[in-house]
Each structure stands twice: as structure tokens, then as C-alpha cells.
């Protein structure tokens, strides 16, 4: 079995970070080959759904990188992105995603070195964390599995708020419920 090689996806803007990564290349700097770069015009174009999708499709770490504040080629795209991702991070954190797998950075066209540093740090960090199982597992699970488990008395030990009998508030529903459990 191979050692674990993390899959890292980088969403970058074309003007600053993509150019910074180009500079790392022309300067012949070295960094781990785990990263796949997806080019966007601007960090403002990057939808949180893309990050979600990347995790679902097997990414172990995601990097979002664009121009430093004030340097946006489109004036304000990175400012909007900054707010959007500040909110998205909070959400991921709340549902229990380890934020160490998600990195944001400003890398300018002149910062080849910083690109290498950011990519290397993230790759090595994720390597020590191991594969990200959460979203991948979901892909293979079927509906009702945990529900059936819970209702069959094999409780997951989690506190499910409210009393289910109130949800199933008609005899008909209750009957249906009983028939599946």
C-alpha cells in the first residue's frame, strides 16, 4: 500500500495567484505535486458550492487564493470573496468540518515563494491529518440507514431534539412509522 498522498485542490484567481504559481515555476521552486489548480477570473467568482463539491469528489484539502486586498483586477471581487468565505468557514466549522483542511490565502503575482509555502504547508498538514473521510463516506451511504438504526433502538447515542411521536402526530403516520421500524 502506498503512503497516503493527499488530494489538494486549489481555486485561484488568474491575475494574482495563478501568475504567482507561474512565477514559482519560472523560478524553478519545488513543491509537492499533490495540488490541482483550477483557474478563475477572480476569487469573487468562486462559489462555496465548488469547495463542497471538491470535498465530495475526494479532495482532502482545498485552497482558495487570490489577490491581496486592494490589488483585485476587478476592484472588489476579493473583498466580496473574503466575506463570503468568512461566513462559509463558520458554517463548515459548525457542522464539524475540520477547518485545517481549508486554506485561504492572498498570493500576488510576485509571490512565487509564498505560493510554494502555502501549497507545501497545506499539503503537509493534510498529509499528517490523513484522508478526509466525511464527505466521501456520505457518497456511499444510503437513506434511512442511520435513521433505521436509531429507530430500531440501536441509538447512535446522540441527543435528537424533540420527541419523534410529536412529529408523527397522526395515527396514520405512526402506523407507517411502526411498519418500517
Amino acid at each position: 500500500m502506498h503512503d497516503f498522498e493527499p488530494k489538494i485542490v486549489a481555486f485561484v484567481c488568474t491575475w494574482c495567484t495563478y501568475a504567482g504559481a507561474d512565477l514559482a515555476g519560472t523560478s524553478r521552486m519545488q513543491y509537492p505535486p499533490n495540488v490541482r489548480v483550477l483557474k478563475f477570473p477572480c476569487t469573487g467568482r468562486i462559489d462555496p458550492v465548488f469547495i463542497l463539491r471538491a470535498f465530495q469528489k475526494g479532495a482532502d484539502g482545498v485552497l482558495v487564493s487570490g489577490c491581496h486586498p486592494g490589488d483585485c483586477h476587478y476592484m472588489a471581487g476579493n473583498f466580496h470573496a473574503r466575506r463570503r468565505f468568512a461566513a462559509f468557514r463558520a458554517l463548515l466549522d459548525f457542522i464539524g468540518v475540520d477547518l485545517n483542511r481549508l486554506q485561504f490565502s492572498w498570493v500576488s503575482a510576485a509571490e512565487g515563494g509564498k505560493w510554494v509555502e502555502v501549497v507545501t504547508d497545506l499539503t503537509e498538514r493534510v498529509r499528517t491529518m490523513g484522508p478526509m473521510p466525511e464527505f466521501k463516506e456520505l457518497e456511499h451511504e444510503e437513506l434511512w440507514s442511520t435513521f433505521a438504526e436509531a429507530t430500531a433502538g440501536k441509538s447512535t447515542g446522540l441527543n435528537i431534539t424533540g420527541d419523534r411521536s410529536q412529529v408523527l402526530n397522526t395515527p396514520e403516520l405512526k402506523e407507517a412509522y411502526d411498519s418500517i421500524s
Partner: protein
Amino acid sequence: MNAKANKNQLTSIEPAYYEAVTEAIRKEAVKILKEDTVVGVVGYLPGRRKGTATPALVTSVEEAEKLVFSPACVNNLSVYLTKAKKGVLKQGKVGIVAKGCDMRALAGLMTESQLQREDLFIIGVVCPGVYGFGVERTGTLTEANIARKCRECIVHMPEGADVAAGTHAELADLTPEEAEEMARIEAMPQAERWAFWKEHFSRCIRCMACRQVCPFCYCEQCLCDKNRPQAVESSPRPAGNMAWHLVRAMHLAGRCGGCAECERVCPMDIPLNLLNRRMAKELKELYDYEAGLAPVEKGPLNQYKEDDDQSFIK
């Protein structure tokens, strides 16, 4: 204004209060219908069973005289103006009975150009709270039967209504359940948080009631119904469920006024309002923004400041 100075430390809101509010709503509704100020009023009629109420669009004086307000008036009526009864706005000005949370939704919808203030006649209700689910509906509102969301309500008195029905009424010393629940989840180890939500989301049957009842899910085509490309798997499987609830929370961030209708209608008892509340808390902390307190030009995620927090960015 000053809650502490309120001498009436109420432990219950008696039916008399609701009768008074009902009277005020009826009077105002009848008046604006008679005067042809509005083509109809969205409000509540008594439900068929005792202790219930049902949303309705009334267009005649006779019907308006039947309007009610009680703790059973749980529905957020603003949703009717962007969805089921959207067409009525084309015929003219519409009256609407609005509790604090309905008002927050209305303000948000005005912010998003979905409603125009001049198209509405808002009968604001000074609302002490509504019933929670599965509680005893005695006609009296107490700490025992008030809804979770109402325990942390910040808009009892709708600002910006045309008229207000009711006077100051608020239950004293309510403990915030949702905030506590949120703190409990935040305090969990990360893996446990994941397991908690995974369990909840796994049960989702994708009935889309949460979307249907939400005043802000007014898109004609939901991103989650799109299949080219398919960002969110549409069948009720755990992967798609997780994606759906994350997308939903993200789309409502900075917009949701906290009416918790999504949570109320969820047949699978998923604590959806916790997600909305968590996002609201974040945006309040980061950008000092609370959704729906008044119509604004731009929501928190549609604007920026040059010195916004970026401590999370390398």
C-alpha cells in the same frame, strides 16, 4: 424600550390580550377594506379545530371580521406574498398582519426588491410569542408552551408597520434554549459535531417543506433542482442532503430573519433554525449586521469594507 423598567414581570399572557389584538386587527382590516385602501388582507382565520389558526387572504369585510390573533398564529405570512398569493399584489395594495418575525422577513424582502413598501399595508402585531410544537394549547401563553425561537425574539414590536395592534407584552425571564443548544454543539469535539449533523441530515427526506415555507426561497428555479450542472444531488441520499442543507444555510446567511418556519414544518424534526441562527451570529459578530431589522440597501454578503476581518487568510 427599557425592558428592565417594565413593572409587569409577566409569567403568562392571558387570552384577554389576544382578544384585544384580534379586535384591533379586525378593526383595521375592515377599515382598509371598506376604504378600498387594499384589495385584500393576509391574516389568520380560526382553524377548524380549537386552538388552531390558519393563514388566509381575506378580501371582504365579512371575512375580515373573522380574522384572529392567538398564540396559534405560528405561520410567517410574508411567504404568501412571494409565493402562493404573489398574484394578488398585481391587483393592488395588500394588507398583511405581521408579527415581529414576519416583519423581519418583509424588511428582507424589501431589501431584495421582492416587495415594495408602498404596495403593503402592514398591520404590525405586538407579539409576545407563539406556541411551540407539541405543546398544550390552552389559550394562555406561558414559558411552558412558547416556541423555542420566541424565547430569543428581539423584535416583539414590529418597527415600520402602518399600525400596531396590541401593547407591550413580553414574558419575563425566558431562558434562551437555542443559544444554549448552539453553545452545546459548538463545544462538542469536531467529530461529534459532524456526527450530530450527519445523523440529522441523514434523516432528511427532501420533502422541501423547509424551502416551500421559507419567505426567502423565492427563486423560480432552485439551484438544487438544476441538473446541468448538478451542484446538489436531488435524491434523498446523505451526500445530497448534506449539500442541500449547507447550500440552504449559505443562501440564507445574512437574510434569514429567524422565523424558524423551516424547523417548524420539518417532518423529520431537523433543528434547521440552529444553522440559520449560527450564521446570523457569525455575521453579527463579524459585520455587526442583523437581518431584517429594517429594509437596507445591501445585505452583509453583498457589501464589504476594506478592513473586514481576514485573520483566517494567510
